[in-house]
């Protein structure tokens, strides 16, 4: 997968209201049905069956719910295709979110309740209470379905071993370890390493392998927690190497990390060369909105100099996912060309949003992605490709 300035997405898109309400048992309004019709027409998706199901408004059967998810998945894929992306996905239309969904499919975990993330935002947190065992690979059906209707190559994202561990409690490896003693502190560190490595071996690798065997050739490992504990970055690296295993030469692996202090990854990520092919970070969120290719205008891209020394393809976040501001194509172009000055080789630079666009409406997400592709095209023209 080596195309100069290839464009792709990063995981999530918003779920349409008609999909959310149907799955959670809330009554659908006329507006919800009109929304489904509008997007169907715009994306040229035949919606006769969907609208017929949605017209029930409530009390959908499991089969009907599955068809509703099918249509939201297909529409999301078509949205990305229509925006002009080279690699597509369905924006997690099949999933709840990136932690609870996988953890529920692994034996050994128990959910206790909510903890706060910030303000009035919370997430359900689970503890590992016994040996981990993958119930069954949890993204294969999703890949099979998306691949059946996608017109572009499909990339499947998957939450990585370190993040699943970092966001969980540990009652298994930590059991009976003393507190406040040197021996206890060392055992705690060792327990943490074992947790990461077993997660990689018992859960992530089998998932990746199953996807490979099903035909997936582009996989994205999401590790938003990778830099949370700087001292554990080597564990994150070892966990990733274990997760990928013998698939490193068979599959194109992208790694996505965002809203982090990337500096703590260096030099440890050297160990991911040859394992991870594309290293994608968020940049636009830290950048100015002004056009231009000077370091002052492109303040968000400072870490590129450190990253470019390694042999990864640089996954470049050029779209801020936390604002409705639609980046003009010229701004996207300048961000790309600034990065290209550092990375040099356009086949080592891929273009994407900073992160998943789930907090944006489909209208805004589409406008942003369309401009991203247009900006990429402007950049290609400028470098004569």
């Amino acid at each position: 997968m080596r195309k100069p300035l290839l464009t792709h997405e990063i995981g999530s898109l918003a779920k349409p209201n008609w999909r959310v309400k149907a799955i959670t048992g809330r009554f659908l309004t006329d507006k919800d049905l009109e929304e489904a019709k509008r997007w169907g027409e715009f994306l040229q998706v035949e919606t006769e069956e969907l609208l017929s199901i949605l017209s029930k408004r409530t009390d959908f059967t499991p089969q009907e719910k599955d068809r509703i998810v099918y249509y939201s998945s297909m529409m999301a894929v078509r949205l990305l295709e229509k925006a002009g992306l080279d690699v597509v996905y369905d924006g997690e239309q099949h999933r709840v979110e990136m932690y609870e969904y996988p953890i529920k499919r692994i034996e050994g975990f128990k959910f206790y309740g909510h903890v706060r993330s910030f303000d009035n935002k919370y997430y359900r947190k689970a503890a590992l209470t016994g040996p981990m065992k993958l119930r069954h690979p949890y993204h294969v059906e999703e890949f099979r379905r998306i691949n059946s209707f996608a017109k572009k190559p499909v990339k499947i994202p998957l939450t990585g071993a370190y993040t699943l561990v970092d966001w969980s409690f540990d009652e298994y490896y930590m059991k009976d370890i003393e507190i406040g003693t040197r021996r206890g502190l060392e055992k705690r560190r060792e327990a943490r390493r074992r947790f990461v490595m077993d997660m990689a071996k018992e859960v992530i690798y089998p998932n990746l392998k199953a996807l490979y065997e099903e035909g997936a050739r582009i996989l994205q490992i999401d590790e938003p927690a990778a830099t949370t504990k700087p001292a554990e970055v080597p564990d994150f690296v070892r966990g990733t190497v274990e997760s990928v295993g013998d698939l490193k030469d068979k599959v194109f692996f992208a790694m996505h990390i965002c809203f982090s202090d990337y500096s703590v990854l260096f030099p440890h990520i050297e160990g991911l060369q040859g394992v991870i092919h594309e290293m994608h970070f968020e940049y636009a969120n830290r950048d100015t909105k002004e056009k231009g290719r000077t370091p002052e205008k492109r303040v968000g891209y400072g870490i590129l100099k450190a990253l470019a020394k390694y042999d990864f393809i640089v996954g470049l976040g050029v779209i801020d996912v936390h604002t409705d501001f639609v980046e003009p194509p010229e701004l996207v172009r300048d961000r790309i060309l600034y990065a290209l000055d550092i990375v040099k080789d356009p086949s080592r630079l891929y273009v994407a949003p900073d992160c998943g666009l789930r907090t944006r409406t489909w209208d805004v997400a589409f406008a942003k992605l369309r401009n991203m592709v247009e900006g990429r095209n402007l950049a290609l023209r400028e470098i004569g490709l």
Partner: protein
Amino acid sequence: MKRSVSLNGKYPRSEALIRATRDYDRGRIGKEELEEVYRKDYERVKKLQDGFPLRSDGLLNWQDIVRPFAYLVKEAHVGGLVRYFETNTFYRKLFFYDVSIRGDMEAWASQFFRFGNLAILPSPYTLHRFSEGLSIEKAGHLVGAVVEYLWSNGYDYFFLQEPAIVYYRDMEAMEKLEEALEFIAKKSNGAIISLNTYFADVSPMIKHLLSLPVSAIGIDFTFTDVESLVQAGWDEDKGLVAGIIDTQNSLMETDEVLAPVMEKIEQELEPKFFIYTGSSDFEFLPSSVADRKVEILKRLGGVK
């Protein structure tokens, strides 16, 4: 009070309050309904501490450890999210423009300190570090003013939450912190003030911490080896707020796990007094788990 127990930091909201805060944000319930759920949750936290010599309100309505200070001063604004040390939680950075205190301390305090005799507040260095436009000295003045008010309104114990100074090992800031703490101590002559550190090994800084004008130092024993403190030598006039209940993990501490550290604290470290508590905020645990950990504390403190 040789041995005691207490809560530490923010206490988790119940699942009912979590639902209510979400519903309020989405416009499904009004302010009064939300306040009623808060009232029940404060009752829950109060009941949980029956028999505790030190009782805190759990800071249930604090959005983070510094947020109320944005509403205490004449001009400040609440900024973007910043990761709270090495956790999967975030606080909002505060931007201070005019740090003179807004008129009514009573109204402010009644909103953020609902009951109890233990007030939990950010320490000046952490408040400074989580803000823009607020020096350690000015942070000390703000915290001092709050401590003075609460001290004169029945609070006897103050936990000043100071994870930042040990996490960043900022030796250069120690002098300024000392001055700020002196100011606070003068505002509450006779109160028990503990400087609670967490999220880092304190042993490299322990001598400096022990020299600070506070009654006790709080230590997170999920990061610090008690033997290193024994080796460094403790100040017999200083108390210890011993974070021996892991608030970052749901695993329940057994006697076998706690015995070695407690034995060393009580027989070798010999602080003036010791208060067993959580290693950091209990809020990192779901409420059902935190409640069970408080039961362990009760057992340690001999609370009936």
